[in-house]
């Protein structure tokens, strides 16, 4: 099973050429899509092997660390108390606990800009909700243990929600619409409800 660095390096190598119509990293895999009118499956496999084996597999400097402001107000964090009890801490201590853990963006998927995050520090399992919600608001921070996520759009979802960021995870008017990218380190920073409400460019969807 390839590790995160290998997947990211493969993504860099695949992106450097124009053979692929899509390059999609997964949590422990990476997929490419090609146009079968231009290339046969055998040719595609050969090119993949070449690109994986070449000197191109030098890792790229990691993108700059992102600081994500999060409001842990109970109204925005319906599962805050539940998650805190699973973690064995007081609900009030959750912001500090969360801020102390650096996370890495493992991949984007599910919805445009939706980020899957991983923490290297051990953490009790919280697990998914028994009954997924029909509506999770954009910017919600979900956590199931060492893995957490940030919802980019209002959508259904099953991860316990411990806070919400006012940042837009996907802004189509930007040249790079996704706020985060795979491999990036993320740090959370607690903000008050007032700061959340008055945050410039608040999440609109």
């Amino acid at each position, binding site marked *: 099973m390839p590790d995160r660095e290998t997947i990211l390096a493969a993504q860099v190598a695949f992106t450097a050429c124009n053979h692929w119509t899509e390059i999609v990293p*997964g949590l422990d895999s990476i997929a490419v899509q090609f146009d*079968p009118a231009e290339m046969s499956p055998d040719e595609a496999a050969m090119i993949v092997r070449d690109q994986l084996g070449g000197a191109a597999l030098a890792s790229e400097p990691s993108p700059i660390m992102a600081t994500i402001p999060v409001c842990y107000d109970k109204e925005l964090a319906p599962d805050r108390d539940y998650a805190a009890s699973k973690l064995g801490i007081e609900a009030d201590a959750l912001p500090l606990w969360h801020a102390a853990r650096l996370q890495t963006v493992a991949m*984007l*998927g*599910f919805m*445009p800009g939706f980020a899957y995050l991983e923490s290297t520090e051990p953490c009790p399992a919280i697990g998914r909700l028994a009954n997924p919600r029909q509506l999770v608001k954009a910017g919600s921070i979900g956590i199931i243990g060492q893995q957490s996520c940030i919802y980019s759009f209002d959508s259904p979802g099953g991860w316990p929600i411990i806070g919400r960021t006012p940042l837009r995870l996907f802004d*189509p008017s930007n040249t790079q619409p*996704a706020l985060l990218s795979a491999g990036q380190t993320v740090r959370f920073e607690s903000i008050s409800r007032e700061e959340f409400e008055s945050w410039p460019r608040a999440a609109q969807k």
Partner: protein
Amino acid sequence: MSIRVLKAGLQTTLQGAPFSGHRHIGLPAAGAADSLSLALANYLVGKPSGEIAIEITLTEAIFQVDQPCSIAVVGAAEYVRINGQDQPHHLTLHLTAGDKLDIGPSRPGCRTYLAISGEIHSDRLLGGRSTYLAAGLGGFHGRALKDQDIVALSDTSPTMKVDRTTPPTLRPHYSDDHVLRVTAGPETDEPHNGILEELCLRHYGVGARANRMGMALEGLPLRTSEASNMPSAAVFPGTIQLPPSGEPYLLGPDAQTTGGYPRIAQVIRADRHLIGQLGSGSRIQFVHTTAERATGIYREKISLLSSWLGQINLW
């Protein structure tokens, strides 16, 4: 010039070529669910195959134009009427200001494409203009059309006025019974040995909750294994997933970019436009083929179509 929506129906959206090259940031393909019918419709009004057209789903839709223009209708609609008069599919039709265009319900099949001369105004996003409904992006303000919406068009007095009709041999057959060819998926062999053979031995019906994102397939459940959840990995339109219920799930054009269920099969590119004609109650038989064969089939299909449509690409 504009086209007014008198009756939008169940789900009518602006769709053309899919978004491409952005799945790594979570942007799905979207675009016309039936790329072949779209291409045929666009050609009848002198447009390239991936231009934006109006995609109509299952129910009747009615429009009115405020200027002369050329239109064409290709798809599953039972009838096409201009001011109440029946018109043929697969033919360039000329409308005058105030004409009312009535496109009938899909029978059989699921989707119909209305192509119009002139450029349909549609929100631009990362090089594409199709509608991605779940995130409210692209197309007509990111949403399906509603009654009384007015869709703007650039000048429609066609610089290249065409009168065309699709050759009978190239007209798709619209049906509720489909044969879809599939190749093995990444999780077909381990730990699901024999699963593809099982899939191809059974008959499936499309369940009630079929939409552009995907559809549950009803039939005898397939056996699942311990590994029915796996680390999230890339999925594509046409991927068949195996959730713990054992009922396969077929992904459509708006499918999310990654998923955590085993990917037991992949509908080949040459057959993927048929997914756009699958609705609740459609029946499917899967047939196993190899990636090499699938490439050959796709190239033959493209070559046949390009004799009429010129440069063409299906998705």
